[in-house]
C-alpha cells in the first residue's frame, strides 16, 4: 500500500495523484495562481511549493506526484517564507492601483497578499509598459496587471482550441498578447470569456456597459426594457454570499424593477420560441433532404468559431437567432410599436452569463435600419455591480413575476442554461410535433451532466434521430472533425462554447470550481422537475404569439424577425 505523510497525517494517494490534490482532499489549503482543475499542471507560479523530506529545495506540489513514503510539510516556516517572497516579487512589478481596479475585492493576488500579511513593498521591479487593449467588443486586456500565470493562454488553447492569445517575447520582457499584438478585436478571439473566468488579477475583464445602462435608466425620454437569461437566476446569488445553485429568479425580477427597468422579460420565453423554430427547422431539413447535421446557434462564441475556423459548416448552423436576439427583435420590432413606442426610444438591455453576447448584440445582422435589437449586454457580474450601485440586496427582496407578454416560460426554456438543455427541450417538442403525444418521461438522462460530449439515439415516431451535445469549443472542434471525416449518423448537434454550458459562462461570478458549476446545473434541473409547464410548445404566450402574429414556425414573419445568416470571417491569425 502506498502512503505518504502530510503535516504528520498519513494518507493514501490515488495512483498518479499529485501532492496538491492529496492535500486538497485532506482540507489543507495550498495557494495556487496557475493551477487549472482538469488540465495538466504547468508549474508556472510556484505558489504551491512544499517541503519534501530528503529532496533538495522545495517542490511544486501541483506537478509533483505523491510517491510512497514521502514526508511533506505544506506550511513549514521555510515554505511560508518562500511563498511570501515569490508573491512579493510578483507584486514588485504589479501596479498599486487596487482601489481603482475592476477586480478590487475579487482578485486572487490581492487576497493572497492579504492572507500572507504583505504590508510593504520590499521589491520594486521594472514595469514593462504595455498598451491596454480596449478594441474588443467583449473583453478588455491590461497586460500591465498580468502576472504571467498562463491560465488564459491554456484555457484559450487547450480547452477552447482557439489560441488567440499567447506568450510573446522572452524573459523579463514576456507578455501575453494576440497575433502580431494587433488587438483582440481583429484576432481569432471568440469572446467566450473563459480567460476572464480564470484570470487571477485584473488583466482580463469584460467590457463594462454599466455606465451606459445607468445613463439610459436616468433618461426620462427612454423606456428601458430588460431580459434575463436562464442561467443568471441560479448564479447571481453567489455574488451576494448565497450558496451556488440558489435560485433567486423572483427576487432578481424585483431587484431589476427597483433598479429602474420599466419592463422585465425572461429570455427563457424566447428560448421556448427558439425551440419552436429550431425543431421545425430540423424537421424541415430532414423531410426535404436539407443540410445535416443541423447545429444549434444559441452560443455566439461558437458562431464566430465556425465562421472563422470551419466556414464550410456555416450552412449546417441553424438560421435561428439566439434567444437573446429573438427577444431583442420582439422587443424592438413587435412589442414597442404595439405599445405606441418608437423603437429608437426603447433601450433594450440583456443580462447574460456570457461575454460573447456583447459581440453578438453588436453584429450588424442584429439591427433593423441600424436600430439594434439589443442595445446593452450586462454580464451576471455587471448585474451584481449594478445592484450594488443601487443599494439593493437580493436576499431580502420579495419575489415578483416577470412582465407579460414575454415573462412566462416553460422549464424547457429554463434548462437552456445547461449543456444538453437545448437538446432536451428540442427533443420534447420534436416528439410532440411528430407523434402528437408528449414523451412519457420528459427527463432525458443521457443529455444531462457535465461531460464534454453526450450522445443520444432516439426513435421519434418513425424517425431514428442521432443527436450529440458538446460543450467547450475543443470538444466542438473534435466533433466537427469527425463530421468532416465522414461521420454520418448525426442529425442534430448542440454546441455550447463554455464547458458545462452557460452556467459556467465567461460572465458568471468568479472564483468558482466545477462543484459550484454542478450545483448550478442541479438547480436548473430542480426547477424543471418542479415545474408545471415543462415543454416549449405548451407555453401559452408562445402559442398566442404564433396565433396572433407570427402564424407558424418558419413563417415569413418568423424568418424576418427570428432568423439570420452567418458569413465566413477573416481574422488575424
Amino acid at each position, binding site marked *: 500500500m502506498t502512503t505518504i505523510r502530510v503535516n504528520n497525517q498519513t494518507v493514501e494517494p490515488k495512483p498518479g495523484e499529485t501532492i496538491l490534490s492529496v492535500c486538497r482532499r485532506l482540507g489543507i489549503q495550498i495557494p495556487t495562481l496557475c493551477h487549472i482543475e482538469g488540465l495538466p499542471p504547468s508549474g508556472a507560479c510556484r505558489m504551491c511549493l512544499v517541503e519534501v523530506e530528503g529532496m533538495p529545495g522545495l517542490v511544486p506540489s501541483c506537478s509533483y506526484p505523491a510517491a510512497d513514503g514521502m514526508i511533506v510539510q505544506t506550511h513549514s516556516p521555510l515554505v511560508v517564507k518562500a511563498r511570501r517572497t515569490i508573491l512579493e516579487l510578483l507584486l514588485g512589478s504589479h501596479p498599486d492601483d487596487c482601489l481603482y481596479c475592476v477586480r478590487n475585492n475579487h482578485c486572487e493576488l490581492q487576497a493572497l497578499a492579504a492572507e500572507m500579511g504583505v504590508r510593504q513593498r520590499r521589491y520594486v521591479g521594472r514595469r514593462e509598459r504595455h498598451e*491596454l487593449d480596449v*478594441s474588443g467588443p467583449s473583453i478588455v486586456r491590461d497586460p500591465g496587471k498580468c502576472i504571467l500565470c498562463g491560465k488564459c493562454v491554456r484555457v484559450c488553447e487547450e480547452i477552447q482550441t482557439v489560441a488567440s492569445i499567447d506568450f510573446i517575447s522572452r524573459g523579463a520582457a514576456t507578455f501575453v498578447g494576440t497575433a502580431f499584438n494587433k488587438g483582440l*478585436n481583429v484576432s481569432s478571439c471568440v469572446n467566450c470569456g473563459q480567460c476572464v473566468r480564470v484570470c487571477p488579477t485584473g488583466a482580463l475583464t469584460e467590457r463594462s456597459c454599466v455606465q451606459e445602462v445607468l445613463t439610459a435608466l436616468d433618461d426620462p425620454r427612454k423606456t428601458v426594457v430588460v431580459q434575463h437569461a436562464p442561467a443568471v437566476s441560479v448564479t447571481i446569488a453567489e455574488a451576494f454570499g448565497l450558496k451556488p445553485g440558489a435560485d433567486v429568479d423572483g427576487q432578481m425580477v424585483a431587484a431589476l424593477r427597483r433598479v429602474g427597468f420599466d419592463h422585465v422579460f425572461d429570455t427563457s420565453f424566447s428560448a421556448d420560441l427558439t425551440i419552436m423554430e429550431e425543431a421545425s427547422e430540423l424537421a424541415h431539413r430532414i423531410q426535404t433532404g436539407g443540410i445535416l447535421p443541423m447545429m444549434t446557434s444559441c452560443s455566439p462564441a461558437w458562431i464566430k468559431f465556425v465562421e472563422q475556423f470551419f466556414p464550410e459548416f456555416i450552412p449546417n448552423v441553424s438560421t435561428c437567432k439566439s434567444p437573446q436576439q429573438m427577444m431583442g427583435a420582439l422587443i424592438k420590432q413587435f412589442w414597442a410599436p404595439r405599445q405606441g413606442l418608437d423603437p429608437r426610444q426603447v433601450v433594450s438591455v440583456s443580462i447574460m452569463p456570457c461575454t460573447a453576447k456583447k459581440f453578438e448584440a453588436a453584429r450588424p445582422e442584429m439591427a433593423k435600419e441600424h436600430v439594434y435589437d439589443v442595445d446593452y449586454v450586462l454580464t451576471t457580474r455587471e448585474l451584481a455591480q449594478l445592484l450594488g450601485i443601487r443599494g439593493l440586496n437580493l436576499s431580502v427582496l420579495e419575489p415578483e413575476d416577470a412582465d407579460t407578454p414575454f415573462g412566462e416560460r416553460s422549464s424547457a426554456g429554463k434548462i437552456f442554461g445547461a449543456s444538453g438543455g437545448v437538446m432536451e427541450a428540442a427533443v420534447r417538442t420534436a416528439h410532440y410535433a411528430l407523434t402528437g403525444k408528449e414523451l412519457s418521461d420528459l427527463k432525458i438522462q443521457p443529455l444531462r451532466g457535465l461531460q464534454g460530449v453526450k450522445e443520444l439515439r432516439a426513435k421519434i415516431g418513425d424517425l431514428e434521430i442521432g443527436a450529440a451535445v458538446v460543450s467547450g469549443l475543443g470538444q466542438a472542434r473534435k466533433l466537427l472533425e469527425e463530421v468532416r471525416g465522414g461521420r454520418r449518423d448525426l442529425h442534430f448537434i448542440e454546441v455550447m462554447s463554455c464547458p458545462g454550458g452557460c452556467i459556467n459562462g465567461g460572465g458568471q461570478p468568479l472564483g468558482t470550481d466545477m462543484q459550484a458549476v454542478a450545483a448550478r446545473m442541479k438547480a436548473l434541473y430542480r426547477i424543471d422537475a418542479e415545474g408545471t409547464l415543462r415543454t416549449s410548445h405548451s407555453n401559452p404566450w408562445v402559442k398566442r404569439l404564433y396565433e396572433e402574429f407570427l402564424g407558424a414556425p418558419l413563417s415569413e414573419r418568423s424568418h424576418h424577425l427570428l432568423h439570420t445568416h452567418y458569413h465566413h470571417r477573416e481574422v488575424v491569425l
Partner: protein
Amino acid sequence: MMARKKLLLVDDDLDILEQLSLALGGEGYEVVTAQGRKEGEEILMLGRPDLAIIDLMMEEMDSGFVLCHEMKKLYPDMPVIILTAVTAATGLDFHARSDEARSWVKADALLDKPVRFEQLKEEVLRLLEPRESEATAAGV
C-alpha cells in the same frame, strides 16, 4: 443612379489610409484622404464631404479633437467618426455614446483601433442614413 457619397479620411498612418481607402472604395464610396490635421483642413475648405473619419493623435495629441471642432463649425450636419488608439496608448477612455459626450467630443461616433471593417461600415451606413440605409435596403 445616386451620386457616390464622398468620405474624408484623415490619419497620419499611411497604412491605415491605404487599407481603409481600398475597403471603403470597394463599398462604392468616393474616398479622399489627408495625412494629418493640416491637410484635412485644406481639403475641408474645398467643399463638404458627406462624412469624415478621423484619427485623434496626429501632429499633436489632440489634433483630431481640434479638427472635429473645426469640422462641426464649418459643416454642423456632417457626421464625424473618430477612429483612435488613444485609450491603448494613454489609458484615457473617451467615448461618444451619450449626448453629453458627443456635445464636447464633437464626433458622432468613436471607435477604438483596431477596428473590424464591418463595424466601421455599419457606423458609416448608420450616420449616412436615412437615405443611404433605404438605398441599401432596396438594393438587397
